[in-house]
């Protein structure tokens, strides 16, 4: 976890109003509710080594332990049994941090839609052709002019 996240946790009381926990409109109690938010954390941690400020749903304050195999499945990554064992406590730690955030009483605070409220950054509708298309296409693992070739089935569902 980056230092930014630790900062966030230390300063929970002051930052909390900005990083309001947002309630999604999923009324049905989704069994995957917890894994859905945490998988995000895992991805960021692994790939970008960067924590993004975002508001997610966690409706219960006592959080379930992570199901690492399920998390790996939703992220379409394979883990060895050893890795599953190794990651479980680390992810558990992250979940516990969120548990702390979850415990902050925010009933009197109006939810904000986004954590960052800096000026919106928009682009004009002016076409701009990307110059280095060739190298991008060259990096495609399987390409047969003019198409990118992909495996047919990626979904197990």
């Amino acid at each position, binding site marked *: 976890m980056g230092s930014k996240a630790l900062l966030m946790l230390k300063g929970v009381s002051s930052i909390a109003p900005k990083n309001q926990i*947002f309630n*999604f*409109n999923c009324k*049905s109690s*989704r069994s*995957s509710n917890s894994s*859905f*938010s945490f*998988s*995000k954390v895992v991805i960021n941690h692994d*790939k970008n080594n960067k924590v*993004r*400020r*975002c*508001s*997610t749903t966690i409706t219960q304050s006592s959080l379930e332990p992570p199901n690492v195999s399920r998390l790996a499945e*939703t992220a*379409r990554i394979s883990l060895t049994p050893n890795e599953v064992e190794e990651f479980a406590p680390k992810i558990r730690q992250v979940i516990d941090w969120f548990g702390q955030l979850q415990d902050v009483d925010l009933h009197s605070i109006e939810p904000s*839609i*986004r954590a*960052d*409220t*800096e*000026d*919106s*950054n*928009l*682009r*004009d*509708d*002016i*076409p*701009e*052709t*990307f110059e280095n*298309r060739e190298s*991008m*296409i060259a990096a495609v693992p*399987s390409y*047969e002019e*003019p*198409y*990118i*070739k*992909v*495996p*047919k089935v*990626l*979904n197990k*569902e």
Partner: protein
Amino acid sequence: MMASTIFRSIQNHPLLLYPTALFRRKNGVFYCTMKSTEAQTATQEKQKPQIKNPPRTQTKTSDKFSKDYEAVIGIETHVQLNTLTKAFCGCPYNYGSPPNTSVCPICMGLPGALPVLNSKVIELAVKVGLALNSKLSLNSKFDRKQYFYPDLPKGYQISQFDVPIASGGYIDLDLPVEFGGGHRRFGITRVHMEEDAGKLLHSENESYSQEITASPLPKYCLLIWLILLQVDLNRAGVPLLEIVSEPDMRTGIEAAEYAAELQRLVRYLGVSNGNMQEGSLRCDVNVSIRPIGQAQFGTKVEIKNLNSFSSVSRAIDFEISRQVLLHSQGQGDQITQETRLWEEGAQKTVTMRKKEGLADYRYFPEPDLPGVILTKEYVNSIRDSLPELPEVKRRRYEKMGLSMQDVLFLANDVNVAEFFDATIAKGADVKLAANWIMGDIAAYIKNEKLTINEIKLIPQELAELIASIKGGTISGKIGKEILFELLAKGGTVKGLIKEKDLVQIVDPMEIEKIVDKVLSENPKQLEQYRGGKTKLQGYFAGQVMKLSKGKANPGLLNKILLEKLNAQS
């Protein structure tokens, strides 16, 4: 989203649907959607026999039950916005560009690339939100919808989930006269912004490869099997609006008219070309039935692969019959929540996939994009810039005294409506202008396969033509000749009248001279007429008209002719 992509690719595989499609066409089931200037009413007349006479036997069985049930229909529509660039990157989007030419790290989902929202997308979304009478969220945001499919390079679609840009509106429409007419208001649940996925094409050797996979595989075969789909990412990242209706429709016709009105609306607003063939407007419908009087909804079925308004209408009517039949046979429990595919060739819906609970898209707020903040001033400035919308136009035309048939025809196509408006703005008689546009001009456009914007005739000259006929300068017959000249070559009414010496002869003396000449040249017929064969008046009138090169005023001609014919008897 995922499934609609599958169908899109199926459409691109002509072999799948073609033989059966040909078969249907033989039966005269050929319909077209409302592209170009073809009128809504005209289009639907063609569909009518089809709807009245559905090609299925189950209808008879279920007809006596169908009166006990009502259908509940809701529609999700995806509208592709006609921005110059994609939603989150500057790649230009042009339909039909060579595959994978309009791509960049952002729309290809390369690591580290950051999306930046195109301001035009917000503008167009606000336009549609306002036009649908919905409540705009001054503060909305984007979310990530996760799913894994090869046409979606990032592994998620940027969409709006719990806070759409607009929610809770309605749309008004008039049902075509031939379907009994009537005004309807259908609720709009929400409008949200999202990005399109790429286009997936099935390669030629697919079926062959699949056969191989049926048996246990050596490794090289697996390789063949894996490389099966072709992806074109030109469309990935193109901005869409998803418009979700309330479940307010009850029949296939109502649903098709709702979709047609949405198309009209986006075309009036200029936010999309609304072209169904190109996939710029795509409809997924949800259909369920319930016993009349029951408040609770039945199990809903989703139908995809609807490429025209008539397929929307017919797929729904088929699905209603299918469900009613199951109920009538005591098999109502066989209706399961599933996605069904409309087969145009066979004119039926078939199971595509059964739903096993709700898909888990693991939505969360898109961290790479800031919130979408609208100011009241911004919204008001867009509200002030909105054009006259179809419903307002129809009500205005109705107040002008036009029949509903005329109203629907003229307001159907925004370009036709503008032509009509410009013509009457030049002082033309309303009913006469409507008749010319709906008659000879529409026929010419249809024959020449043009749009009204492509003809050489301009509204001012149509107004001039109508005035010239009304004022008696030229006859109606000559007016028609001038019209076709103007349609094909342009020019002015005054110029043509002068050039061709077409001014109507209204001088009684001059007409009398011609009548005298005709009578003296046809003594035999004159004798027969006076002997009681008065039908010959038409012959004389024709001769006089011919001699005057069509320029004699018909009223005067007939009056003078009659006097002369009857005078010396």
